[in-house]
């Protein structure tokens, strides 16, 4: 009886997490607003700092790698926008329950509310950062195209959100139980940045090391954003990896959440 009750509570947590969109969207928006409370530009500092980063990096790295600016700028900008979102989501997820410990111990809200808060916060930031890409689209319109593939950004973002939610539950749970994991997650994320074709194009990797990219699911997630923004399609093999990683995440998340949801409050 106790197990079926626990299952019902877990499902209820998940469902009311979605229904609570008013709460987490407000919390997410509040997080961003408070960060820029007394500044004149407000959240547009996000856009501005992203612009300074990618515009100067693009110029430097195009010359370092001896690639045509025309080809490199759209590639780097889309890659950086995608990676910034993915990496900050993962880093923030590690602290999901610790950052909300005060609220968790005072009011009963579904635990998934806090996961939604972290992901939606970074989605809002993404929509600020995307503005940086508009000048690139205009200047380098021969490489960065708007076409049918651009529409894929919507389903792709939804897929990214779904994965954020499932892996979010996994990361947040483990980091709540083992605080050391927060630091481990952060350093892994940093390493992955260099391992993933964000600054460098997969084409410059020698053919015999191509498996290196194939084994890196983060590349597929970057592609999820980058490909539609550049008007390109995603390879079938990449869809395969994405499907596998998504299924794995959902399985893992349901197992852990079912087993440990009720323990979270005791850990933080």
């Amino acid at each position: 009886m106790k197990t079926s009750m626990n299952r019902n509570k877990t499902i209820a947590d998940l469902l009311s997490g979605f229904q609570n969109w008013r709460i987490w969207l407000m919390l997410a928006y509040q997080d961003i607003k408070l960060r820029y409370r007394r500044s004149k530009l407000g959240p547009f500092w996000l856009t501005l700092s992203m612009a300074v980063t990618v515009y100067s990096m693009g110029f430097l790295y195009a010359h370092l790698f001896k690639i045509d600016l025309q080809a490199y700028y759209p590639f780097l900008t889309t890659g950086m926008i995608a990676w910034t979102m993915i990496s900050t989501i993962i880093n923030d997820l590690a602290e999901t329950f610790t950052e909300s410990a005060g609220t968790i111990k005072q009011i009963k809200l579904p635990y998934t509310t806090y996961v939604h808060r972290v992901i939606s916060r970074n989605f809002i930031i993404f929509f600020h950062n995307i503005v940086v890409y508009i000048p690139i689209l205009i200047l380098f319109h021969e490489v960065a195209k708007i076409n049918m593939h651009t529409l894929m950004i919507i389903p792709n973002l939804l897929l990214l959100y779904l994965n954020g939610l499932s892996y979010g539950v996994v990361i947040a749970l483990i980091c709540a139980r083992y605080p050391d994991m927060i630091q481990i997650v952060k350093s892994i994320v940093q390493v992955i940045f260099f391992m993933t074709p964000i600054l460098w194009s997969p084409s410059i990797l020698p053919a015999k090391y191509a498996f290196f990219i194939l084994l890196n699911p983060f590349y597929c997630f970057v592609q999820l954003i980058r490909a539609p923004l550049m008007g390109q399609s995603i390879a079938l093999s990449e869809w395969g990896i994405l499907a596998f990683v998504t299924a794995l995440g959902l399985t893992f998340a349901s197992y852990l959440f079912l087993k440990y949801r009720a323990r979270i409050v005791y850990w933080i």
Partner: protein
Amino acid sequence: MAHIRIKNASVEFPIYHANARSIKNQFIRISTGGKVMSDASQHLVVKALDNISVNIEHGDRVGLVGHNGAGKSTLLKLMADIYEPTRGTIDRDGKVSPLLNIMQGIETESTGYENIVMRGICLGLTRKQIKAKVDEIAEFTGLGSYLAMPTRTYSSGMQIRLAFGIATSIEPEILLIDEVFGAGDADFMQKARNKMVELLSQSSIVVFASHANDLIAEFCNKAILMDGGKVIAFGKVNEILELYQKQHPHN
């Protein structure tokens, strides 16, 4: 009908020893065959609530008494579904409104109005419903134009006025209160008291933890005496208070 039925429920907090909680030691333990660090893996457990069984039904106004650390706040949090029992069961019917820490969720960088809206959303109200509440809260707190200022500019008394005004702007079914009285000037205390009485009469169940026995005697018809995480006695308010006073003559 609203009710809270708790059966043989325990709440146990694992205290992770700094040693036991880090990943490093989990690895060490594996590599050393679980002998060297075996004592570190046996987490200490604090039994905050020990085998509690209580039935609270519609119309009950229950006072929680007991000295510090008796488990009053934990029991309220168990009732509020913040802690799920590690053993036993709890069955609850009715919408629970906890008033555990009135300062909870007051964002100091946000204005008074923004705080009202934020809390309203957290309670599941729509923008329209919140708008209807804002004037009522503004009048109750008497903060006037200060509501448009960030709450960090408030004096502590003003912050309590706002927090109290927001926290009590609910229509509770099951109301759980943990020591909310005690601050603000005399004028506001009278207002706060009236507000509490109003709130108590609206709710179908009230559980009220306090060290102020006169308040419990005034507001409650039943009481629970707790000690060491256990329910010592549950019954009519005057009998329980008498028992409590016999045990602790200084109160």
